[in-house]
């Protein structure tokens, strides 16, 4: 029994126990290094994307690239033999018009659906709706593009009596249907994050359900809702296959929703296969990639800041 043993002997035993490192001590150390490597891998990959895309496009960007022509010229003719031009204005207009229409279509419906699911639906109905929205978000982009080509296309030609159905309208609606589920989910999370105490306080003062929503919940969820929209824009902006297949191939600035356009992302996808490594055409497509990377990075950064409410007066 401990009381019988001399203090020194006991201390010797304790000293030994407390200073001997078992195998698990070393294993823990190794694991902590391993998971750290895993953790920073995300940073490594993001930097890697920027590095390798820039690497392939650097030749063009530092050489043939004319920034003024790049951003202000409508003439995208990289395959011209005599005078290749690399103006992306029309392509940007294509992306902007399709994304803009998509947001016009998606934002109100996403918000409405998010409000319904978060504030009105309950229990089984709520769960089912959330599941349906999740399934919607899972549909691959190439399938959406196919739908645009084979279903929306003839539909638009019939209904609106226009010669061509691959247009801003087609790609815009398709993109809207693609971005909507994600925006709905994020918006619904933002609404759910508003504490119930806010709602209860308003109801205690006699407000009706819709008054509570419009005057209390929506303003409180403002940041999250804006982030949802921003992320939807980012998704629309970066979408490739669906836009490639549904927006047509004409490179021009659209004057009506029935015009065919070409988006930035689709251009890369459509033309990369025909380029030779090291050529200017190859280089400009990678430069486009850098441009896309930077823009989506900024959008995501903004969404992150908006969610935290920095720079917004409360």
């Amino acid at each position, binding site marked *: 029994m*401990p009381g019988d043993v001399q203090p020194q002997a006991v201390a010797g035993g304790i000293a030994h126990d407390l*200073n001997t490192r078992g195998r*698990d001590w070393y294993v823990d150390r190794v694991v902590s290094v391993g998971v750290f490597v895993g953790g920073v891998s995300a940073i490594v990959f993001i930097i890697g994307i920027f590095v390798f895309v820039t690497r392939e496009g650097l030749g063009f960007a530092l050489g043939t690239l004319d920034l003024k022509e790049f951003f202000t010229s409508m003439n995208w003719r990289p395959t011209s033999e005599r005078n290749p031009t690399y103006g992306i204005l029309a392509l940007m207009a294509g992306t902007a018009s399709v994304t803009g229409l998509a947001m016009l279509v998606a934002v109100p419906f996403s918000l409405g659906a998010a409000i319904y699911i978060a504030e009105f639906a309950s229990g089984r109905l709520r769960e089912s709706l959330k599941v349906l929205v999740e399934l919607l978000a899972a549909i691959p982009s190439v399938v959406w593009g196919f739908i645009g080509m084979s279903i929306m296309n003839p539909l638009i030609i019939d209904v609106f009596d226009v010669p061509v159905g691959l247009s801003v309208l087609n790609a815009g609606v398709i993109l809207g249907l693609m971005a909507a589920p994600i925006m709905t989910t994020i918006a619904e999370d933002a609404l759910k994050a508003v504490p119930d105490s806010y709602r209860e306080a308003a109801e205690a003062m006699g407000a009706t359900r819709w008054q509570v929503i419009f005057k209390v919940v929506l303003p409180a969820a403002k940041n999250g809702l804006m982030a949802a929209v921003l992320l939807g824009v980012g998704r629309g902006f970066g979408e490739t296959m669906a836009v490639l297949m549904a927006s047509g191939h004409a490179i021009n600035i659209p004057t009506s929703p029935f015009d065919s356009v070409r988006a930035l992302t689709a251009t890369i996808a459509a033309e990369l296969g025909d380029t030779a490594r090291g050529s200017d055409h190859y280089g400009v497509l990678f430069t486009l990639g850098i441009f896309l990377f930077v823009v989506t990075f900024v959008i995501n950064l903004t969404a992150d800041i908006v969610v935290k409410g920095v720079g917004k007066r409360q």
Partner: protein
Amino acid sequence: MVVGVPKLSVQDLTVRYGGVTALDGISLDVMPNEIFGIIGPANSGKTSFLRALNRMEEFDSNMTVEGKILFEGQDITAIRNVYALRRKVGVVFPLPVGLPMSIYENVAFSPRLAGVRKKAQLDEIVERCLKRAALWDEVKDRLHALGSLLSGGQQQRLTIARALSQEPELLLLDEFSIAVDPVTTMRIEDVLKELKDEITIVLVTNLVQQARRLADRTAFFLQSELVEVADTEELFTGSVKDQRTRDYVEGRFG
């Protein structure tokens, strides 16, 4: 009068969380085989004291600890295997915690970590610890049931069984009876009285009368300060040195 080598020697211990000081220069000794009580109102630093004793600041990036803590003469910041230290110190929290595994595995957890493999040995340890924690009779026919689904009082006794399975030198209890019914509290108090002969116990409690029932000596913590330490009976029968202690013990604040 206490003689001998202290089990625990705390010298000028200061614990901070960010800018907030939870303990300010505490010094005290805990002798072997005593029940050392700690009383005081909320936020006096009692829990921080216990956490510093087994170096739990390693898991809290906000917590800083200064000063010296000697466990049987060993400076606990200088030892090379802090896990061995924690294995020698059993801890019981205010909120009962049953790990999400069978009752058997709950109590076998620490022995397995220590390298015990044979089923016969583990069986013996599990039965012995559950019996000493006054839980065996209630669960002996369902040792495979989930520990996390037991009642609060049972989970608290399970926690004690786990602590005992560590064969600890020191047992720390932090307001163990808060979430537990009075009958279980009494049973656990009996267990503690029995354990005193083998291990040293530090008992933090918000129930002043519980300290009176169990503790040999008691310390009074108030707002990060150690006000005084004395033999329990002296503390409660009025020969206290500090007016604040008398006020607290007599219920004038708390």
